């Protein structure tokens, strides 16, 4: 991990970091070696933590997602692991294309060198609105905005977007919570990870995540396997 001891590159997001790791370690974007990618990803996260580099929550979520893919590959249902992996690969390919396109477009940047005029203002009287609409139109738009949002309570698009993705995220989020709870040197009991987790697949994923995180030396179990702490340094 010598390369990590210098000033870290800053990435636009977890996908940017993953693409960097994939090209640096010459991984095949169409068939990623998850173990290796996860290992490198966690190394970066560790290095970032040591240099007090503030990483957005999305980096943590991606770590959890990689752990999850790794974990389900241990389950006797390889399809699920394959599906999760392909989703990730799909995201990476799509993002790589967006980056390539952005680079090309940047070459055409001319700045605001072609000046135009502001529209001439017509006198106010003439601007008065002339059309007529049915009042139902207002009710329709109200409904589209949504009652909660309409009251000014913050219900951003992000939340509703997340709901549509809930299927794949719900399991991962259980794993995220482990890492989140341990960050900052907290110790938690293993039992508490299962508090309120009744869904069987979620319990399985939680168990597997603990297993994986332990194996990678990210977290440590005490002697009687009841308490979890975050490892300060990589154990390898």
């Amino acid at each position, binding site marked *: 991990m010598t390369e990590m001891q210098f000033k870290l590159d800053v990435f636009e997001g977890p996908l940017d970091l993953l693409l960097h790791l994939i090209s640096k370690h010459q991984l095949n974007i169409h068939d990623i070696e998850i173990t290796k990618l996860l290992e490198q990803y966690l190394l970066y996260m560790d290095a970032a933590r040591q240099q007090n580099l503030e990483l957005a929550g999305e980096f943590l979520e991606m770590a959890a997602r990689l752990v999850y893919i790794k974990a389900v590959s241990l389950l006797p249902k390889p399809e699920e692991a394959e599906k999760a992996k392909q989703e990730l690969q799909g995201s990476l390919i799509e993002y790589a294309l967006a980056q390539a396109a952005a680079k090309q477009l940047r070459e055409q940047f001319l700045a605001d060198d072609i000046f135009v*005029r502001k529209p001439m203002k017509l006198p106010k009287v003439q601007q008065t609105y002339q059309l*007529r609409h049915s009042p139902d139109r207002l009710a329709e*738009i109200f409904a589209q905005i949504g009652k909660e949002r309409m009251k000014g309570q913050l219900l951003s698009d992000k939340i509703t977007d997340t709901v549509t993705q809930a299927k794949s995220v719900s399991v991962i989020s259980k794993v995220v919570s482990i890492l989140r709870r341990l960050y900052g040197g907290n110790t938690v009991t293993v039992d508490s990870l299962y508090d309120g987790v009744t869904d069987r697949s979620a319990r399985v994923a939680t168990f597997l995540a603990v297993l994986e995180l332990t194996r990678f030396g990210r977290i440590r179990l005490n002697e009687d396997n009841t308490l979890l702490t975050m490892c300060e340094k990589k154990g390898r």
Partner: protein
Amino acid sequence: MTEENQLSAMAEAILFAAGEPLETSRIAQALGVTESEIPVIMQKLEQRYLETDSALQILHLEKAWQLAAKQEFAPVIRTALETRRMQPLSNAAMETLTIIAYNQPVSKGFVERVRGIDSSSVVNSLADKGLVEEAGRIDVPGHPIGYRTTDLFLRVFGLRSLEELPEPKPAESGGTFTGELTEQDVPS
């Protein structure tokens, strides 16, 4: 291009982009000439407009200059631009209007919170169209200006009072607001 033509063109470019009257001193500074040379440059430009049947003219106002369309073109300009009046409200405008209508009086900040994007110019444009107006300051931190709907708003939507605002309908599937004209959207 002769140097003379070059200076005229530069003056033209500046006045064109400015849109409003610009002081002699500023023009002279940008062109790198003395203020006394500006009238000559402007005259040259005006001369070119005359000779080539241009629609533009130079206006000299006290110590400033402005590029404008000749008066005789006012009718055709009005015809072209007034069709804008007949354009239905944009989605953003319709939405902002709905938010103000159901929550009035509200600040621009409130509209922004609901919509998740700065909506200040949309509110201003609704005010220009006479659909909303200022309603004093609101008793929340910062005391921002509140906005409310106008009588024109009621007429546009065929309402006698705000109490007649319809109850929100449950969103139907496929019922996106596209801003396309429907049969109700006829000019009065």
